[in-house]
């Protein structure tokens, strides 16, 4: 291999990469949080809702999980303006990722809904709790604890694979920044080597944060290393 790595260019523009990483983290956290709310609603409807609503949720899940996130975001960015709806590229990525994550999380959270002990729900019922209170105080803590690893994994998927889709419609998250910068001086390999390491560091920080939150808030017995 005759290639000579020149990382100097990368270090000179490292601030821009850090900004990109920060945006990646923000997009990931926001899309996951909003997606989790959508997923919670979807899972609640799939478990307790009337059939027309269940049918709608099924349609949404099937439609989203069987099409690529890239195409969904393309549709929002290039398709919606045809109907007079014009969102910024960041908004398109956020909304697209939220809808995408929401569909997957509907399925993941549904497993949590189904594994709640019926007897705990009955206890809540006889103590006079409303359906929303039962979900909030019995189902959600149960889900958080019992399927925490699956949720944490999915967060990493959104953080790494989801957010990088933003690059194609000009959102300057980590991948987008690397593409922008490397088109200036053609140091593709250096930039992409560095951001690969940055993604690993990012997911490591995120995993650590998730494990600490899980232990503290939900008594998840998560191993950090």
């Amino acid at each position, binding site marked *: 291999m005759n290639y000579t790595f020149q990382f100097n260019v990368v270090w000179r523009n490292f601030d821009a990469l850090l900004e990109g990483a920060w945006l990646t983290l923000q997009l990931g956290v926001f899309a996951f949080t909003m997606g989790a709310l959508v997923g919670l609603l979807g899972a609640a409807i799939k478990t307790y809702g009337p059939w027309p609503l269940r049918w709608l949720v099924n349609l949404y899940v099937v439609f989203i999980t069987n099409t690529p996130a890239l195409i969904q975001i393309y549709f929002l960015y290039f398709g919606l303006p045809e109907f007079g709806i014009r969102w910024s590229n960041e908004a398109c990525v956020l909304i697209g990722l939220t809808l995408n994550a929401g569909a997957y999380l509907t399925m993941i959270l549904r497993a949590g809904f189904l594994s709640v002990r019926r007897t*705990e729900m*009955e206890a809540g019922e006889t103590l*006079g*709790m409303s359906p929303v*209170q039962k979900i909030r105080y019995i189902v959600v803590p149960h889900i958080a604890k019992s399927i925490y690893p699956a949720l944490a994994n999915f967060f990493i998927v959104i953080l790494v694979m989801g957010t990088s889709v933003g690059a194609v419609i000009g959102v300057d998250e980590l991948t987008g920044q690397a593409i922008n910068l490397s088109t200036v001086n053609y140091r593709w390999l250096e930039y992409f080597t560095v951001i690969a390491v940055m993604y690993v560091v990012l997911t490591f920080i995120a995993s650590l944060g998730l494990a600490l939150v899980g232990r503290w808030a939900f008594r998840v017995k998560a191993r950090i290393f």
Partner: protein
Amino acid sequence: MPHLAVNDVYAKYGALEVLHGIAFEVDRGEVVSLVGPSGSGKSTVLRTLVGLTPVSRGSVEVDGTSIDYRSGRALKAARDRMAIVFQQYNLFQNMNVLRNVTLAPTKVKGRNRREVEEEAMELLALVGMSDKAGAYPDELSGGQQQRVAIARALALKPDILLLDEVTSALDPELVNEVLDAIRRLAREGMTMLLVSHEMAFVREVSSKVVFMDKGRVVETGAPARIFDAPESDRARDFFGKVLRG
């Protein structure tokens, strides 16, 4: 007027009718026990009273007012009057002991948290669990969990406490700690309706015993009368078997 009157109640699980016209009464301050073979519908009676199993015919009256189990408001009112403790304790696994007890009074009743916590600590003391207020259910023995479940039910200040085979899931050596808690409540004048297989305890604590078989009440009377001189063949046969051992 009886405190609780169950009038000719029928109930079904799906297509299977499990109660075929149950009737009995509970007076204020009384401890009434439902006894009988497994599958006789004793637990179902308690479940219908708190609206977990629908009543298909008949009526339930509390202080002379009939409860309409189809109306959400009436059901909520009924659950204010009657609290149930389950065989499997059914504590909220993700909350500590204190939170298990305070959740319904604070979130359902919207009462002041401080005040509720003070009362909860008193209730936990009553069942001998105040030193475990910060523990989680999976850190407790069955007997301890069941005592917390009793405190949780009492926290809503029910008029009538329903106890569904509360010692059946416990190791024999843990049974007494739960029975002691119930004895203490009986002494304090709590109205209770209990389903139990602890015949000696039923005899000691009850003012009235209702013997059930196959979804019907076979006979009702004072514990000494029912245990020592049952009138029906079915009761004689049942007590002959369970009391001999």
